[in-house]
């Protein structure tokens, strides 16, 4: 056949065109792959290969099926072999691309797809797949080009027009994007002589996408015109009103903006955003009298709305605030709303308001206690006990917030005692007060107590687990969390469900406990979730074009572009990097060497006993393995017997490294750390922490230019940060003693000089010491002195005299910094033990003892 002849020297059966039975079987392979009938597909492939063992496309397809069965190594080998045997086959190249894509190796996949397209120009399926890959890696120009080709070939389908519009829009070519949509409108009008024949929702979304593009382009009038012109076709009523409000506001059409916002408020009286926008539109921002009048009027209109009563508390002050807050808390106390304090918490930024609230709450409590009435009220409360309970809880929260630990604890105890049975939420409040005071064990005990009161409530379970992990009780925590996971198999279920909060808490708990393996295991799990979430976009590139949910698709792309800046990932990355740095600084002892040392220290008998024990353990392991294998085989046979129909509920692969021991054995901890940093630098550059961590990694790797960049970025993020400036001192010291030369040296010297203002490392660090006012700042400054090569003893000794941080976590961080300095720790802890008498970490006298 001519195809076989074309492929030249591999003219045997590698590139042969199949016919007859083999051709049918090959088609069957493709079909089986598409319908996920892997086993059948393999069988069919083997049938073809029996006759033509080198047939490239069959080999490639077989590899592709294996890749879907998680047999990646074999898959790659087969596909590569397939490509080699039939270099001119676009199918082989396409399959090669699919396998790379399954490996999430998008860029390699793109190369393969391009080869495939060269061999088979205009293949619709390959073009579509290529477009998805290009947008996945945000190759916007290439994506647009591919979308253009697709549209050229298939102008009949709406989604191809929308695909190009999205591409142009993402490239920032708003006008071009709108033009594409309008062309489509014309095209359909010509074709059908009427409106596009689409589902109502899809039409609506198309026009709204157009309006969104125009709005983002700053063409507000035009955007509005789109909304007006198609108003009868737009089904997203709320979305349209919200956009109108924005557009009217931007255009300075105050009356219409106001009417629209009022209409939105009528639809949803609890969306705070509407009120904020209304304030801006009315120009009452900052004019308290006008603001008050506005909200008073709204309160008449919507007597049931919480927002109209809560929001004025933000701008009122003095007596007006005091009386408003008194009025405000009555209904929630009466009703027993547990989140009342959280709702007021933001007001504590204002000291005067904090004081006013303290007074008000105390008065309410004493009035309810003595008369069963709210102050100034004639009416006795129907459920006075409950009112007392919630009023006391509110007062307790207040005391906790202003740092009165004793008062908070005694008040919450009285709240707990005021009803029978007690209100569970009071216990949660108490646990949080103990947590703030640093009494991790006490907090855990209270959390466990309340968990026991309602074992069916997962929130109480989760809260308790968190407290257990903070207290270092990981075994209890792991047992407790498993009460709510299916099959009680917590490890796999929590991982499958991407339960990042637990994994981060558990990771930190193990990290604190020095169990680096288990810490790494958990942090790595979170990393895996985020990689999966990044991959999750892939299928939606096509899907959203079909669904026409384009506005939200664009939102999704934007959110995914900052994916790794989410707190859960930042925490995991921080934990992971810290453990890897620790591993780099304190390498694990070589096990063989360790054993030798141990043996050398033993007596002859001990040695014999030890060897015997080892041998026994080995035998036992061999036996266990054999049994396990036999069991698995038996299960597999039985599963086969059970019939093919049974949805291959793919048996869960056992985790080969459940405790992270393998992770711990890494020979390149800095490379691993860098892998965690990389997405942070991409997505989370606005966070100081990112650059503090990056600095630590890069300086250890000797990448001083990158370390300089990290220093600069950290200082930019928070110019007065002591941690960032400690790193500056450190870098200055490193650079001054570094032996690099030439251009690099010049850049480094200039960079450091800019950062330090020309001061030496030692002088810069001393300036930090002079500036420090809290013990955390002082400890970091002392560390800077040490890192700058000086004697930090004096600076460290003074840390205990500085202002004690308000938060326990900051105090603990100060101690950690001094521990790195190696001086002044005892004095600081003695001071902190007095300041935080409930804190276990400082040996506080009132801290709950462990059972």
């Amino acid at each position, binding site marked *: 056949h001519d195809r076989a002849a074309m492929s030249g020297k591999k003219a045997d059966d590698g590139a042969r065109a199949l016919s007859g039975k083999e051709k049918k079987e090959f088609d069957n392979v493709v079909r089986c792959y598409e319908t996920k009938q892997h086993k059948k597909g393999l069988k069919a492939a083997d049938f073809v290969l029996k006759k033509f063992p080198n047939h490239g496309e069959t080999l490639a397809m077989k590899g592709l099926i294996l890749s879907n069965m998680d047999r990646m190594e074999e898959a790659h080998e087969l596909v590569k072999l397939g490509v080699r045997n039939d270099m001119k086959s676009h199918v082989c190249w396409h399959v090669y691309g699919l396998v790379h894509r399954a490996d999430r190796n998008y860029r390699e996949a793109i190369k393969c797809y391009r080869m495939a397209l060269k061999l088979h120009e205009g293949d619709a399926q390959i073009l579509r797949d290529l477009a998805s890959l290009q947008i996945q890696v945000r190759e916007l120009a290439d994506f647009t080009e591919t979308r253009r080709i697709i549209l050229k070939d298939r102008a009949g389908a709406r989604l191809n027009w929308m695909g190009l519009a999205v591409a142009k829009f993402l490239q920032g070519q708003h006008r071009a994007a709108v033009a594409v949509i309008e062309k489509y409108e014309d095209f359909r009008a010509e074709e059908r002589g009427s409106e596009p024949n689409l589902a109502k929702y899809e039409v609506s979304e198309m026009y709204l996408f157009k309006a969104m593009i125009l709005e983002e382009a700053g063409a507000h009038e035009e955007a509005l015109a789109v909304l007006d012109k198609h*108003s009868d076709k737009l089904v997203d009523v*709320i979305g349209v009103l919200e956009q109108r409000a924005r557009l009217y506001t931007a255009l300075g059409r105050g009356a219409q903006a106001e009417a629209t916002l009022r209409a939105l408020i009528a639809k949803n009286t609890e969306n705070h955003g509407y009120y904020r926008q209304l304030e801006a539109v009315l120009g009452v921002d900052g004019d308290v009298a006008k603001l008050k009048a506005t909200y008073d009027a709204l309160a008449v209109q919507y007597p049931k709305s919480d927002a109209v009563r809560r929001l004025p508390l933000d701008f009122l002050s003095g007596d007006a605030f005091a009386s408003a807050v008194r009025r405000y808390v009555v209904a929630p106390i009466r009703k027993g709303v547990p989140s009342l304090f*959280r709702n007021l918490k933001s007001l504590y930024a204002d000291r005067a308001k904090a004081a006013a609230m303290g007074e008000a709450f105390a008065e309410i409590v004493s009035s309810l206690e003595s008369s069963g009435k709210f102050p100034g009220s004639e009416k006795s409360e129907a459920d006075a006990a409950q009112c007392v309970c919630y009023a006391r809880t509110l007062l307790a929260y207040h005391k906790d917030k202003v740092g009165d630990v004793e008062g908070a604890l005694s008040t919450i105890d009285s709240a707990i005692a005021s009803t029978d049975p007690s209100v569970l939420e009071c216990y949660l409040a108490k646990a949080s007060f103990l947590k703030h005071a640093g009494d991790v064990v006490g907090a855990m005990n209270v959390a466990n107590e309340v968990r026991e009161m309602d074992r069916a409530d997962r929130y109480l379970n989760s809260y308790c687990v968190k407290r257990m992990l903070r207290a270092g009780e990981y075994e209890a925590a792991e047992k407790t969390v498993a009460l709510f996971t299916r099959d009680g198999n917590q490890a796999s279920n929590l991982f499958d469900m991407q339960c990042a909060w637990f994994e981060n808490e558990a990771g930190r708990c193990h990290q604190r406990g020095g169990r680096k393996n288990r810490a790494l295991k958990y942090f790595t799990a979170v990393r895996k979730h985020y990689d999966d979430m990044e991959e999750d976009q892939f299928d939606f590139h096509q899907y959203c074009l079909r669904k026409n949910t384009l506005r939200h698709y664009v939102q999704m792309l934007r959110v995914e572009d900052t994916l790794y800046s989410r707190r859960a990932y930042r925490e995991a990355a921080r934990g992971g990097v810290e453990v890897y740095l620790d591993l780099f600084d304190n390498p694990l002892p070589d096990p063989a060497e360790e054993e030798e040392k141990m043996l050398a220290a033993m007596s002859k008998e001990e040695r014999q006993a030890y060897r015997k024990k080892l041998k026994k353990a080995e035998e036992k392991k061999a036996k266990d393995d054999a049994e396990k294998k036999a069991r698995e085989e038996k299960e597999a046979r039985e599963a086969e017997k059970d019939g093919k129909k049974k949805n291959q509920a793919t048996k869960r692969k056992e985790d080969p490294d459940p405790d992270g021991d393998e992770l711990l054995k890494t020979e390149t901890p800095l490379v691993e750390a860098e892998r965690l940093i990389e997405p942070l630098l991409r997505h989370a550059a606005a966070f100081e922490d990112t650059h503090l961590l990056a600095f630590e990694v890069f300086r250890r790797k000797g990448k001083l230019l990158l370390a300089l960049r990290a220093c600069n970025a950290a200082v930019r993020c928070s110019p007065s940060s002591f941690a960032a400036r400690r790193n500056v001192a450190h870098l200055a010291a490193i650079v001054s003693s570094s032996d690099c030369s030439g251009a690099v040296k010049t850049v480094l010297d200039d960079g450091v000089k800019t950062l330090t203002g020309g001061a030496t490392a030692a002088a810069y660090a001393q300036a930090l010491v002079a500036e420090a006012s809290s013990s955390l700042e002082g400890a970091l400054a002392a560390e800077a002195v040490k890192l700058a090569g000086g004697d930090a003893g004096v600076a460290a000794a003074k840390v205990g005299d500085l202002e004690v941080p308000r938060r326990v976590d900051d105090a603990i961080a100060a101690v950690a910094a001094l521990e790195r300095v190696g001086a002044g720790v005892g004095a600081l802890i003695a001071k902190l033990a007095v300041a935080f008498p409930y804190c276990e970490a400082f040996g506080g006298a009132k801290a709950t003892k462990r059972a």
Partner: protein
Amino acid sequence: RVPRSPAPFGPRSQLALRKQPRAPSGVVRALANPEARRGSRRERRRSPPTRPRVSRLTSRSSPTSSMVCIRPATLEDVWEMQHCNLMCLPENYQMKYYLYHSLSWPQLLHVAESADGKGGKKIVGYVLAKLDEESEDAHGHITSLAVLRTHRKLGIAAKLMRAAHDAMCGVYDAKYCSLHVRVSNAAAIHLYVDILGYEKKDVEKKYYADGEDAHDMRKTFARLAEEAEKNQDANVDSALVEELKLLSVVG
């Protein structure tokens, strides 16, 4: 011919039969989609069931005041929705399942947002809903509803549900909304039946993984429209009604 990716859309022939695109692959139906109605009962039992659940909703408390912001969810919110779900419900889903809802029926998802006390915002409740487009009469379905225990007694669940209902009939012309609830979950049943006007249609035996039965409930939307009118009459003064009318003339 070039092989097509097996998922999400399968072979063309199958695709041609469908009016709507299917869920993206990896939205493992058995695992993540409890309402995969095609699944066998056995399969369904294994899968995490929907369990809208609001407990401790005492009959005394009227769902009126709310100290949190209720608003349509954005794509940004789905991570926090997952977190909220993991904190308080035993039935959990992977992120892709939330994305799937959010990118299929974006107007149906709503969140309750509160200050987190650290200067930021926090999602304290959500409703995750979908549209069943495969059956003859398009209808909504509540996949999951949760409110953090710390934010109960505020009527958040009812507000979230109403917002989802509004969007179901307003945006998608849904005729009714369905949901499943544990027969033992009295508080949630109270919310659905007494406050939101659901009716018990059926009992699905052993619907849940632990063998518990589920009420199959349904709320038809004709009544919702009346209710909304009634609410509006109570809430909106006449001048505003005029404004509204004006607006709907404009757009």
